[in-house]
């Protein structure tokens, strides 16, 4: 589930690419696949919270992606999304579930769709992590979305540090990414990482800065224009209230 390392100056976001072409051409197709790789788990979480059993939810989710990547039902969601991929996907999923009640979705799977590797255990574990904090299906979806986004960002961040040969340091200092870092002390962390405290503080500072950049970059991939990034971030924070 590794994500491609996108160029820093990503002139067109993945979602604008999909949006503009209706997902029609090859680059748009790749962009859509990429987005689905990151955000399929919240969709599964939503379906589960709608009351479907694991096996059914797995089928419905898989079928949904098959249809999405083949651009079935595509137009139904485009307007509903209002320029936001998250809202688009949820609208489309709801539409899909409504249709699925009338048909046996199991009969429709497959047929030349691109490969999408889905680890259902991962998705279940996401659902567990959402837990009781977001009981409603819509809230669980947003909550799960935020987790998926953060996982993606942290993976990218770790890859970057790994490339610099600093994976160990990364694992020690990532605790400084959150504003409330409980008992974390720079001195202790420095001791564990085997560097002096000043070095560690600088590293933590750089990590935070890079983290903020990456997070915004990733959010920007899912909205129509970059002016919507802060709005989307606020919306995701709402999921934790």
């Amino acid at each position: 589930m590794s994500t491609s390392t996108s160029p820093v100056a990503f002139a067109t976001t993945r979602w604008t690419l999909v949006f503009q072409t209706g997902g029609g051409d090859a680059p748009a197709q790749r962009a859509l696949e990429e987005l689905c790789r990151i955000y399929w788990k919240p969709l599964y979480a939503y379906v589960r919270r709608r009351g479907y059993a694991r096996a059914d939810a797995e089928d419905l989710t898989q079928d949904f992606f098959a249809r999405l990547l083949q651009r079935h039902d595509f137009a139904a969601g485009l307007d509903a999304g209002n320029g936001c991929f998250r809202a688009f996907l949820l609208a489309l999923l709801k539409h899909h579930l409504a249709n699925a009640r009338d048909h046996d979705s199991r009969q429709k799977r497959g047929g030349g769709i691109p490969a999408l590797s889905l680890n259902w255990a991962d998705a279940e574990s996401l659902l567990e992590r959402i837990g009781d904090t977001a009981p409603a299906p819509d809230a669980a979806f947003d909550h799960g979305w935020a987790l998926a986004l953060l996982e993606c960002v942290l993976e990218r961040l770790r890859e970057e540090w790994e490339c610099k040969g600093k994976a160990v340091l990364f694992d020690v200092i990532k605790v400084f990414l959150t504003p409330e870092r409980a008992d974390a002390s720079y001195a202790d962390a420095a001791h564990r990482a085997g560097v002096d405290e000043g070095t560690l503080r600088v590293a933590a500072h750089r990590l935070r800065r890079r983290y903020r950049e990456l997070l915004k970059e990733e959010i920007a991939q899912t909205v129509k224009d970059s002016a919507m990034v802060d709005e989307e971030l606020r919306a995701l924070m709402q999921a934790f209230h």
Partner: protein
Amino acid sequence: MSTTTTPTSDNSPRQSPLDGLDPAGLLRQAAADATATGTTEASAQAFIPPSPEALAALFPQFDILALLGKGGMGAVYKVRQKALDRIAALKILPREIGDNPALATQFTREARALAQLNHPGIVTLYEFGETSGLFFFLMEFVDGMTLHRLLDNGRIAPRDALAIVPQICDALQYAHDHGVVHRDIKPENILLDKQGRVKIADFGLVKLVRSLAAPESSPAAASSTATLILQDGHILGTPAYMAPEQREHPATVDHRTDIYALGVVFYQMLTGELPGRPLQVPSGKVAIDVRLDEVVLRALESQPDRRYQHASDVKTRIEEITGSAAGSEKSTKPKRKSFFEEWYHLGAWKLLTYGALPVALISVPIILWQTSRIMNLSTAIINRADVASPEASTPPAESELYKAALANAEENLRKVKNRHAAGHAPQSAVYEAEDFLAFLKARNSGSLEEAKVKLAANERDIAIAKKQVAGGLISASSLHELETRRSVILWDIERLQKTTTGTPATAAPAEQTLQPDSGDNEALAKATTDWLAFVDAGESLESHVRASAHFRQKVPAAEWQAMLASSRKLLGETLSRKLKSRVTVKRLPNLPDGEYNIAIFESSFSNTKNAVETVTFSRESDGVWRAVGYYVR
């Protein structure tokens, strides 16, 4: 299963990279940045202050009441400190300036120097620190307006200007005496409260922020009246108010750069305009005493050597001019340092911080609700110390009190460290807690020889520190600290000499304690009850008149009134008061030998349930017991 969609056969979930991290916190980390600075591409945009809601997440200890204003160097919010129910001003620095932890130590050092400034004309710094990379200052809240606002409509009446400038001079002189240069004097930083009193804000902030400025940050330089931040992140000052040497060699400026800026502000007050080129004298623009031209021009000299050399010189010259015009007021204004000024000069607040010194505590005529720092640091210790003050003459090593204090100090240090790690306490609090513990431990040695060695070392340190202060290498506060320690060591030596020269330790209290006759006991009890009744009723004048001469001399009635009013507000109504101990001694530090009676009460107030009140009475020459000290904790 479809052959083209390929669910992985592995049914165990991978470990999430979020493992152990709070997702809501991660989002907030980014959100704080979104509101504070924008993204890196947007760093050239103006500083956007966080909304009060965004800030509330970072500062749970405050109610964020309103955004008061913002500038190139941060934003200021009106907040309520929940624990103290105190209104304060919270200043946060733009994240791009503050977020460089490598320089946190330097920040701490600078900020500590600022925290030493205690002057009615300077906005008091309560606290400073860093929360998730965001540097903040908690300051005195001034209910009023900035001089900038006052100058919105152009010039102000010369009479008003002449009332304001000397106050600025006083504050500057005080800061300069303490080795602190403001570096960014301008109307925005000069606050006027509702009584027209001047309070200068952001002392030394420019230098401090420069110490933090990360080279990668690049906020845009703004207009001539906004603080200038260069592309490399260095902050210089505000162009219109900057002395020539500050533009050319910003790192090496001294206090005379403030005098130049003061000249610009003075010019602006008199004429409503900034001085232009060529410089037109103020009296050429408005009808004022031509002698004021000389003051302004001299302050504006481009060569620092040709300016007034001290802020106090500017004030003196203005007073000479105004005095000769409207009869000298000088004689009616005795130059007496305020009590708190003296108190701080003595370094006595350190003694309060090192609260295991009950006698030293009580010797101070009055201590009421000092800064939050002191309250936080030594609450428990002072409590214990107070209750047990009759044991004060026992050598510390053998004293249960000492052990308790040591345990408290260790516990305190642990708590402060945790709070600091959680971002709720500044680094300085940790330093202070460490210092305090080290100080207590150092006192553990009960031997006279060791005390003498300590004294010699201390005196050597003082001698070095004096040279360093003279050379501008360290701030005067460090010297104060050393001198405070010296007085404590001397006190130790005096006590130890007593025990080693054959006076039995058990005899010491007997020698110290007088045996007041029953009439005295009654008189004392009545005096205490009566006096506290006035205090309880908030009768500041009655309680002042009935206090000892020493007390009245140290604390003028108005000051006492203000202290009493603020402390009563914090404490609320008196619910109960129980006498815990009473002791009479002959001698208290910093007071003439005589008869002193120290009464310690366990008291309960509507807002503070478990308080300890210490009331010290002295028998005056007419034989009447009168209050000489009062301390609530």
